[in-house]
């Protein structure tokens, strides 16, 4: 803008360039300082508001390590972990089915994704929880028979609901990953005589991991949070435990804040885990193996890859 408004000020005769060496002065950014100060003031006001607000911080501190909360958090971690395992397994299975030569197999995989991605998780959880209304008993002829309500406990219902729902999303993620691997890889595997399963397991899937891990990390973080929906089917994960406590003592916000702290801690740990998994599967890809170890950037580094690059050079 400046140069357009007054182009003449930039005009210099070639004879003005008398020196070979110059002192370069960087452009100042006063606006950045102003906005920075403004944001810090707003943040301080917000912190003060919460500090003065009606929150019994000592209650928060007390319940942060209360056994009932810790046990709830353990259940949250447990259900999230196993639901992710189920999701990843189903996702891989149905992704391979979607890429099958067999149209029936392809259709079944499509149907699975269509149904479980197209309905709310909460609804799916409720259906699993109430599945005994449809099938009062579970029978494997001659081997096993049980009442459904005894088998499908809240834990099992939550595991099935969250895991199967996750699998539908993972199917699309894994399918995208498999499709991104060059067809030459399959051909090379063929020429050394590898079976289709070996090719998938040894050649294709390891290469898709690099692409699957980032969305899978998002899913894992999402799963940790969505597992709180299982409170609706009375599975005592952390949020359910917190509710049970505040129904009695009335410290609603305090217990919700306790949960928030633990969820944040959990998702932060997942971020770190994701970083190292990504680095492992990035081996063989330029720069993948030589990335520096994890450290918290607190959003302060603008673009992580570029920074890594600068550090190396």
């Amino acid at each position, binding site marked *: 803008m400046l140069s357009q408004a007054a182009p003449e000020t930039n005009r210099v005769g070639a004879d003005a360039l008398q020196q070979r060496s110059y002192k370069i002065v960087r452009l100042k950014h006063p606006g950045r300082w102003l906005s920075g100060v403004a944001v810090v003031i707003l943040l301080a006001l917000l912190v003060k508001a919460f500090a003065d607000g009606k929150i019994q911080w000592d209650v928060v501190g007390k319940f942060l390590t209360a056994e009932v909360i810790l046990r709830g958090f353990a259940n949250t971690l447990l259900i999230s972990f196993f639901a992710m395992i189920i999701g990843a397994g189903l996702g891989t299975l149905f992704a391979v089915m979607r890429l099958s030569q067999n149209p029936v197999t392809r259709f079944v995989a499509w149907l699975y994704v269509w149904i479980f991605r197209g309905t709310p998780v909460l609804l799916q959880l409720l259906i699993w929880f109430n599945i005994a209304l449809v099938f009062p008993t579970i029978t494997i002829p001659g081997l096993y028979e049980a009442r459904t309500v005894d088998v499908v406990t809240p834990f099992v219902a939550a595991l099935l609901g969250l895991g199967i729902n996750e699998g539908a999303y993972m199917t699309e993620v894994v399918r995208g990953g498999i499709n991104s691997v060059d067809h030459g*890889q399959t*051909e*090379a595997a063929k*020429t*050394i*005589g590898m079976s289709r399963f070996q090719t998938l397991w040894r050649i294709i899937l390891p290469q898709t991991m690099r692409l699957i891990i980032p969305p899978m990390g998002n899913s894992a973080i999402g799963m940790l949070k969505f597992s709180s929906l299982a409170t609706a089917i009375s599975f005592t994960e952390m949020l359910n435990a917190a509710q049970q406590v505040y129904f009695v003592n009335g410290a609603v916000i305090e217990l919700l804040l306790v949960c928030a702290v633990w969820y944040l801690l959990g998702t932060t740990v997942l971020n770190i885990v994701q970083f190292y998994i990504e680095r492992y599967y990035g*081996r063989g890809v330029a720069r993948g193996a030589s990335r520096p170890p994890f450290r918290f950037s607190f959003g302060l580094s603008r673009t992580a890859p570029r920074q890594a690059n600068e550090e190396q050079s």
Partner: protein
Amino acid sequence: MTTVVKAINIHKNFNGQAVLTGVDLDVSDGEVLCILGPSGGGKSTLLRCLNHLETLDDGVVWIDGSIIGYELRDGGVLRELPPRKVRRQQREIGMVFQHFNLFPHMTALQNVIEGPVKVRREPRAAATARGKELLAAVGLGDRGGAYPSQLSGGQKQRVAIARALAMNPKVMLFDEPTSALDPELVGEVLDVMRKLAASGTTMIVVTHEIAFARDVADRVAIMVDGTIREIGPPSEVLANPQDPRVRSFLTRVLN
């Protein structure tokens, strides 16, 4: 001279487009055959038919005692073999691709021993020892631990050659092995192929390297429009072509 590779009347169409229109080929044990010809002439497709990366529309491929990809039934019927049997045949036919197709998540050595260990179920220690020998033979004895992304194009292609050799193939197929390389890296790959030829390996090489064909090939085949127009010793075919299409192709590439 015993015949190792025999192809009879190979036809191949892609979506109605005829790519191979009746190719016949005989390759003897230890022979080096270079296939030259203009782009789109069907050279690569022919190679891919030889190891059943492509199915055939007519004709038959025979390599060292067995029909590749099919089973001969009465009345001239070729029935497709199940994948398990095809894989047994394919692993005895080495192939080197234009774009290397190394497994990027494995080191050079892991690429080489993947087939022996996972397909032929050799003990890992023996396969590793042999893999190191093969890497040394292609001049990469010290690069076994490197990932493909850390290797130059020429080095990648030499690893790919070692990977194919690790399966002790009866014949080696090369699909434009130097076409994706920077000019200064072509020589190192051709040197390895020269050594391989001298060691008596049966080789079928699709290439644009006329000089290599002239020096190394026992016979040269020129493919135009899906057939082999001319085949014979390089001294005859390259110096004194009879077919007008072959002559015009050779004048274009030799000048």
